[in-house]
């Protein structure tokens, strides 16, 4: 199914991808019109020009760009991602913390959007063109065209500001000591961002499942199953469900990149202290080490999703699985 040869080639692909991503991120952040030194010491600083120059030299800001990049790369090989100038702590520690927060948010939304989206999609497909189907289709086509942050703001306005049911942001109550924060607090703060991200991610699953249901219900093999005396329930269980679920699960893994993008926007709207808000902070402060670190981690994340999707195609679809074994 998954051979050593393809494992090696996947690793080579990942390495090339990571290199390209870090070069691109490096070029973009260094050409941004933000001075990392200014964002570090602040604009009101009374530091003398000489002292500033000294820090710049110490940080290597005056070195040519390629040299700066390779210095970073050299440290990376020793497992050192550097120090974040925004948070004044090691990049690895920040990413570790932030990523845990984001992973929880993403897993919740990913699972919910997958399950609810699949069920809604099946229902819409089964009752194609019914009032329910039309409403769901219109809503999610609309949401698909709406920007995530806008949707996040609407949800924030309605549920946190107008109704006051949920906190307007952060991952824990403001002013509470970290040690006092309960699991309940965490969940309470997670609901709105997770809800936003779920709604955003669900559209694709619904529309895909719905269309697939309609196609399969009209397929030759479903008509044939009917002539073999299978009831609607049996047809759904034996043929439709399996034929939709397998590609849908695969698609769900392949959508890691959308999930990640949506997460970054949702986190910023809700000031949720995850990797998304850290990315924004790093970009605004020209925090090169942090931004590069995040780029690498997110590239690995998205790459894994696609890789899992690729492997699952082979596992689920006998035409690929058995076809390979016989080749």
């Amino acid at each position: 199914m998954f051979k050593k040869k393809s494992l090696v080639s996947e690793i080579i692909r990942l390495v090339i991808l990571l290199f390209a991503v870090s070069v691109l991120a490096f070029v973009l952040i260094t050409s941004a019109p933000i001075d990392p030194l200014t964002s570090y010491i602040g604009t009101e600083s009374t530091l003398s020009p000489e002292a500033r120059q000294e820090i710049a030299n110490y940080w290597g800001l005056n070195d040519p760009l390629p040299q700066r990049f390779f210095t970073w790369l050299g440290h990376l090989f020793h497992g050192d991602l550097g120090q974040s100038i925004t948070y004044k702590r090691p990049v690895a520690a920040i990413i570790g913390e932030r990523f845990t927060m984001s992973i929880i948010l993403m897993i919740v939304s990913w699972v919910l959007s997958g399950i609810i989206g699949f069920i809604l999609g099946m229902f819409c497909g089964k009752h194609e063109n019914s009032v329910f189907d039309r409403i769901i289709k219109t809503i999610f086509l609309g949401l698909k065209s709406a920007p995530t942050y806008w949707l996040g703001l609407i949800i924030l306005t309605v549920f946190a500001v107008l109704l006051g049911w949920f906190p307007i942001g952060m991952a824990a109550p403001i002013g509470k000591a970290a040690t006092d924060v309960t699991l309940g607090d965490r969940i309470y703060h997670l609901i709105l961002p997770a809800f936003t991200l779920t709604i955003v991610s669900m559209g694709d699953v619904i529309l895909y499942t719905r269309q697939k249901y309609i196609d399969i219900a009209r397929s030759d093999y479903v008509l044939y199953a009917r002539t073999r005396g299978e009831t609607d329930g049996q047809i759904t269980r034996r043929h439709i469900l399996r034929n939709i679920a397998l590609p849908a699960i695969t698609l769900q893994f392949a959508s890691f990149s959308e999930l990640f993008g949506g997460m970054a926007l949702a986190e910023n709207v809700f000031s949720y202290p995850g990797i998304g808000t850290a990315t924004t902070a790093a970009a605004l402060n020209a925090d090169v080490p942090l931004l590069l670190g995040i780029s690498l981690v997110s590239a690995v994340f998205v790459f894994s999703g696609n890789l899992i999707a690729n492997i699952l195609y082979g596992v689920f679809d006998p035409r690929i699985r058995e076809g390979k074994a016989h080749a």
Partner: protein
Amino acid sequence: MELLNIKELLVAFSMYKKGFRKYELEVIHQLSLNVNSGEIVAVVGSSGSGKSILAEAVLGLLPKNSHMHGEITYKGQKVDKKSIRKYMGTDIAYIPQSIDHLDPIMKVGKQVMGVHGSKERQRKLFKQYGLPEDTEKKYPFQCSGGMARRVLVTSALMGKPDLIIADEPTPGLDLKMALEALKDFRELADAGTGILLITHDIDLALGVADRIAVFYAGSVLEVAPVEDFVKHKDRLRHPYSQALINALPQNNFEPIRGTQPYAGDLFSGCLFAPRCHMRDDKCACDVPMMDVRGGKVRCVHAADG
């Protein structure tokens, strides 16, 4: 015993012309046909003339935008889209054109068994039809053309059907396999099964069927014993049947002018009239199905000659 009887069947689809003007497209009309146990009735007609719609109408598989009139009875019981379903897979079996009609991700054995079958009978049928035992563990895409055909036949036989409807079971098969398929049908019919064979291959139909139904522009123009087509061409009742037989290579290879009218622009009266050498004023009237010389025909001049 009469298994299937179709009386004056009409099938129409609701279509939309440019804009939102709705119109009815009649693909089958005035179609009458019956199948008895132990016989093969072949419906022959050119590709794209709507023969498959006939099978779909009988099996209740027509899409939502269609409607049908007329009467279909199975063993004397009037059936419709819903009531036919209790016979499906047991009393009535359908043999589709190709293995594409099997679920691509379900193993062949499980599909042949279906919901009414048993493992023992599946194995017995596989043996009987010379399918290797490991076929049941294969997926449809792993079956060769010949295997696929036999898989579809064994699926049909799973429920010990009295009536089999086969829609173009031979295209894509080489001559040897096609003949083998028809031999299987013949054996089944000789054992008492009634078979409705829908095909565009006249030669193969002539080789295996007991009666031939000539399908033209959505209707059956003539139903006659196969001998009339093979040995006594002059006994054929409809000018189109005669023209069809004369157009075969082994006969005179003689074409006639014109083409079948398209389902969208049908006219009243005999649909073959514009191409017919016997055409006269009577042909513009409604033509009923008549019994002539032991066959059925829809032609006002059939009794004359």
